[in-house]
Structure formats: structure tokens, C-alpha cells
């Protein structure tokens, strides 16, 4: 059931990617709701897949690489859909859909069968910590998408030409405001994620802080985002802010993957 739902999600990510891209590349008019609906379908099946695994395993299934990637993709799609409720930014799906597709595909590569929960993770802190941390990541993913779309739109306006269909992108101000709002949310979530991790670490390891790749890189990411927010509140906006948002997200994803693949430690590798 889990695999089936995950495959469905993968398919829907692919379809919604196509549905978001086509109107940008051709001047044909497509039904407006089509692409967001496909992304929503991807999100729903993805939630289903994660729920199925978590129910079968008896704990929130976000402990190994497969589960982490899958969770990340799912939350990003969810936050993107949420952002559309208040702003006319459905087009962010054009970035989030392929992102969801690649992450979910990556999840398949690392696929493992659910195991018993390692004793050390038996804690109410597990769902709190992972949900906060990954929700923060997902929100940053949406900020990244908004920045990417911002740069495309800005470049078109500066160059004064550009393919006509591309002019249907949201306004710069809409994207910039969204970026700012979303960054603030992401930063709050990331901070809470790190704090909850610290409290939990104190319980199980006896220290608030361990000098290991995952927490250290998380701290680096946190500092970067703190700087970005600082500059934003000092009046940075537009292209500069968008570029830095993209850099920050690249560091976030890079550190996420490198911990998984290169520096497994007590946290973030195989807890076993």
C-alpha cells in the first residue's frame, strides 16, 4: 500500500511538473486549476504513503534516509499548496513539483523496509523534533521557489523582452513579500527544531549540544538564514534577497545530503 501510494505521488509530481511547465512554454490557454490540482493529488497520495508506513511501523516514519527525503518532499508540496491559499502564487508549483519529483525519486533509491524503532529514539520528542525541523526545511523550499520565480520575472522586466507567456508570472512585489513572510516562518521553525533537538539531546546523551556534522551544519544553516533575515529587515529586497535565499537553500540541501551520505554520525546517519 505504501509503495503504491508513493508511486502514485511520484506520478502526480511528474504530471503536475508537466502541467506547470506547458503553459509557460506554449501560448495555449490551459485550465488554470489543472496543475495545482495535480500537485494536490501528489501531496495527498504522499501523505497517504507516509501515514501507511508510520501506522505499520508504529512511530512517525522519519528516521532513515528514505523516510527523510520522502517527508521533506511531502511537506514542501504541502507548504506550497498552503501558500497559494493567500497569494496568487500557484506558479511556485512549477519549482516545487519537479523538486518533489526529484526528492521522491531519491527516496526510492534509498528505499528500506521499516525497522523497529531504535531504543534511543523511543521518545515523544521524535515527532516534535523531526516535524519542526522538516517543516522549517519545507518552508525554506517554498522561499527558494519564490526567489527562483522572482529572478526569472525580474530578468524579463529588466531585459524588456521575454516570451510572452512568461509574463503571466506573479508580480515582483507579490513574490518578494511572500519570500519575506515565508522566511520568517521558516526561521522560527528551524530555531524551534534546533531547540527541541537540544532539549532531547540533553535527555538522551546528557548534553544540549554535540559536535557532530548534523547539528553543526544545522547551526551553519541557521546562522545563514539569520543573516538573510537581518539584511531583509534592514531593507534588502528584490534580486539580492532572492539570490541569498537561493544560496541559503542550496547550503541547506547540501548539508542535508552530505550528512546522509558522507558523514554519518550519531545524529543523521544510521541510528542503530
Amino acid at each position: 500500500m505504501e509503495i503504491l501510494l508513493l508511486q502514485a505521488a511520484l506520478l502526480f509530481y511528474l504530471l503536475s511538473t508537466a502541467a506547470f511547465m506547458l503553459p509557460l512554454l506554449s501560448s495555449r490557454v490551459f485550465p488554470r486549476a489543472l496543475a495545482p490540482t495535480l500537485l494536490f493529488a501528489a501531496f495527498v497520495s504522499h501523505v497517504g504513503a507516509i501515514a501507511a508506513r508510520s501506522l505499520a511501523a508504529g512511530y512517525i516514519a522519519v528516521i532513515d534516509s528514505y523516510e527523510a527525503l520522502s517527508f521533506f518532499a511531502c511537506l514542501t508540496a504541502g507548504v506550497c499548496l498552503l501558500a497559494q491559499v493567500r497569494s496568487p502564487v500557484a506558479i511556485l508549483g512549477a519549482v516545487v513539483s519537479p523538486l518533489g519529483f526529484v526528492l521522491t525519486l531519491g527516496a526510492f533509491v534509498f528505499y528500506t523496509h521499516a525497522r523497529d524503532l531504535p531504543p534511543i529514539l523511543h521518545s515523544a520528542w521524535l515527532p516534535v523534533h523531526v516535524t519542526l525541523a522538516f517543516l522549517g526545511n519545507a518552508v525554506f523550499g517554498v522561499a527558494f521557489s519564490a526567489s527562483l520565480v522572482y529572478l526569472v520575472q525580474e530578468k524579463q522586466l529588466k531585459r524588456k523582452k521575454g516570451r510572452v507567456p512568461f509574463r503571466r508570472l506573479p508580480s515582483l512585489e507579490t513574490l518578494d513579500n511572500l519570500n519575506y513572510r515565508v522566511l520568517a516562518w521558516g526561521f522560527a521553525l528551524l530555531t524551534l527544531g534546533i531547540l527541541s533537538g537540544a532539549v532531547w539531546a540533553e535527555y538522551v546523551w546528557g548534553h544540549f549540544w554535540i559536535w557532530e556534522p548534523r547539528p553543526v551544519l544545522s547551526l551553519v544553516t541557521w546562522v545563514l538564514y539569520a543573516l538573510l533575515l537581518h539584511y531583509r529587515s534592514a531593507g534588502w529586497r528584490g534580486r539580492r534577497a532572492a539570490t541569498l535565499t537561493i544560496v541559503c537553500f542550496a547550503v541547506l540541501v547540501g548539508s542535508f545530503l552530505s550528512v546522509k551520505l558522507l558523514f554519518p554520525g550519531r545524529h543523521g546517519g544510521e541510528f542503530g
Partner: protein
Amino acid sequence: MANRGADLLIVGLNHRSAPVAVRELLAFSNGTLEAALRRLVDAETVREGAILSTCNRVEVVACVTDLNAAGEKIKTFLAEEQQLDRDFFEKYLYTYTGKDAVSHLFRVAASLDSLVVGEPQILGQVKAAYTTSATLGTLGMVLHRCFHKTFAVAKRVRSETGVAAKAVSVSSAAVDLARSIFDRLEDKTALIVGAGEMGEQAVRHLQSNGIGTVLVANRTLHRAVELARQCNGTVVPFEQLHKHVHLADVVIGSAGGNSHVIGLAIVEEALHERKRRPMFFIDLGVPRNFDPRLNDLENVFLYDIDDLEKVVEDNKDERGRAAMKAEVIVAEEVESVCQWLADMAATPTIVALREKAEEIRKREVEKTLASLTDLSPHTQKAIEALSTAITNKLLHPPIAYLKSTSRNSDMQAGFDAATVRQIFGLSDENE
């Protein structure tokens, strides 16, 4: 020979075929249209009719039995109604029949035949023409069907091609661009520098799109005051312009003179003042009012008159491409309506043919059976079956032919139906 089936006929003129001096004389005013329609439609030549009368066109759409007679009748009708000499306007008229008439009606409603292709009013005008004649009862099955299809086609063209989506004037292009930069215009301020006509137009366009505040600066004060009064704006002293630039989100330049009214330094300071919120400069002046290097500043977007003309050109190209797609849609839909019209023409003929054959068969069988009294029921049945088989076999080719020509969806089908009627001596369906 006359077409015995229903045929479509449009007689009219538009902005391309006739000058306004002719169009205005032929146009129907609201009050006269109903009475005229009643006089147009009769039981004989013009069976159904509607009149579309706008400032760009006057068209009589009719379902007729005899194209030539109806054409004459409509022209005379126009002359009598508007009290004009036929020779005066006849050379400006065009006539479409059958498939071409359907196609023309579709193109008009889809705004492909408009002065500004894609303008949205025409569909409403066609709908009004339909409603008027429908309430008067001058529409029958054919025109009802045609108009309904017309509205569906217009809707399809609109949603599938985006033929009307793009700005095609400099002012509207400027507003479009402002919308690409700003979330909403209601809380934004426009500053107009100079009182040139282009600038004034641009400001009006921004205002009708909801821009919040307008500031006006001009070298001669009284002109500034006048413009400010017209567009409900505030005057800014020209000498202190640089102190007010930071207030503006949109700056429109349409001042005369040779030096740049607003240079880099002023804008850099303004940006600092307004915390780098984006600014949109629209330079409509020749020579240019703003330093072209403004566009290199972060969060500043500068469009001069050439840039805007270029946007308009691109949009026009886009409209042209959309219009081509729309033509394809129209062609497809014309096929489907003509198919229906052809079926309409063919079906009664087939029924009449079958009825006549059955009538002959029955009569002949009864005659035969009456003279042969000593037949067994079995033999009687055999004779019935024989007669039925013969008539069916004989009728099969003409019926198949009628069905196939109607499937070719040609107005020719009506003509064919009439031929078959003559050959078989069938009565005229319309009598």
C-alpha cells in the same frame, strides 16, 4: 435552381467594406429595430431573421428558402427601412451564404472580424441581437441553433486562444508592466513629470486601473495645476522634484527639453529613502526624460517609448498567432453546424421517400390480393414480404446517397435532396 431546403444568408457591411458615412445611415436605432424585423421576416422568402447593428457593422442574418429572392428582398428592405437609394449602399454590401455565412457569424462573434481583433464588446452585441429577435419570435430552429453554436464558439475561442489577453496600446502596456512589478496599484503613487499628451494618457490609464495617488510636476505651473485638477492629483513644484521622487512608485516622464530631468543621483538617493522598494520609470519623452542607466539600478525598471512600442508589437504578434488558432477552431465548428443543416435538409426527404414507397407498395399489394381470392394466408404473407423486399432494395441506393452527401457536410446536400424529390415526384416539404 432554387434550393428547397433551409439555407443561411447574411447580407451586411462592416468597417472594412464601408465608410462610416454609409454605416451610420444604415444602422438601426434601438427603437426601430423590432418593427423592422417584423417587416423583414415572412413565411415565404425570409423564414427566420435577426439584425446585428453596431457602430462598426450592420448585418442581416437570415434563414431563407430561395437565396436570390431573399438577397433581393433584404436589399430592398434595407433601402426602404432607412429610406435610402439602393444604389447608394449596394456596392458596400457583402453577401455570405451557407457555410460561409456560418463561418462569418462565428468570426464576428469571436471578435476575429473586429476593428481591434479580440475586443470583447462584440459578443455582447451579437447576444443582444439574438435576444431581440428571439423575443420577437423571428427566429426558427435553424437560427436558434446557429446562434447558440456561435456563442459556444466565441467562448471556446476566448478560453483556448487568449486572443484578447494582451495590451495593444502603449498606455495599457505600461499598466500591464506596472502590474508585473507591483502587487496592487491601490496603495501606489504615480508621479508625472511634464504635461505631454502621452503622459496624460498613461496617467489616466493608471487611474482607471486603480492607482492610489497622483503627483504632477511641470515646468509651467498653471499647466501642472490644470492637469492635477483633471486627474485629482497634487502639484509638486518642479524645482523641488528631486525631493519628491522617493514618494513615487511609478514615474512617468513626458516633459520637453534636452537634458535628463531625472538622473542617476536623484534616483539612488530616492531608493535609499524608500528602502529600495521597486520603482517603475516610464519615459515617454523624446528626447528622453530619464537617464537610461536607471535601468541598471537594483529594483528600478525603466521603459522608454521604444521599449513600450516593442511590448505592444510583441502583443500584437501574439494576438495574430492567437487569431490564427481561432480561425482553425472556427473552421472546425463550421463543419459541425453545416453537418446539422445538411441533415436537416436530407432527413425529411428520406422520410418522404419511404412514405411514398410504402404507400405505393400497400396500394399495389391490396389490388393484387383483391383479385386473387383463393390464396392461403401463407402465400399472402409471401407476397407482402416480396413487395417489401423490392421497395427496400430499390430505395436503398437513393437513401444511402442522401445520407452520404449529408455526411459530407456540404450545403450541396440540400440541393441533392431537392433533386431526389423531383426525380421521385415527392411533394415539397415546405408546403
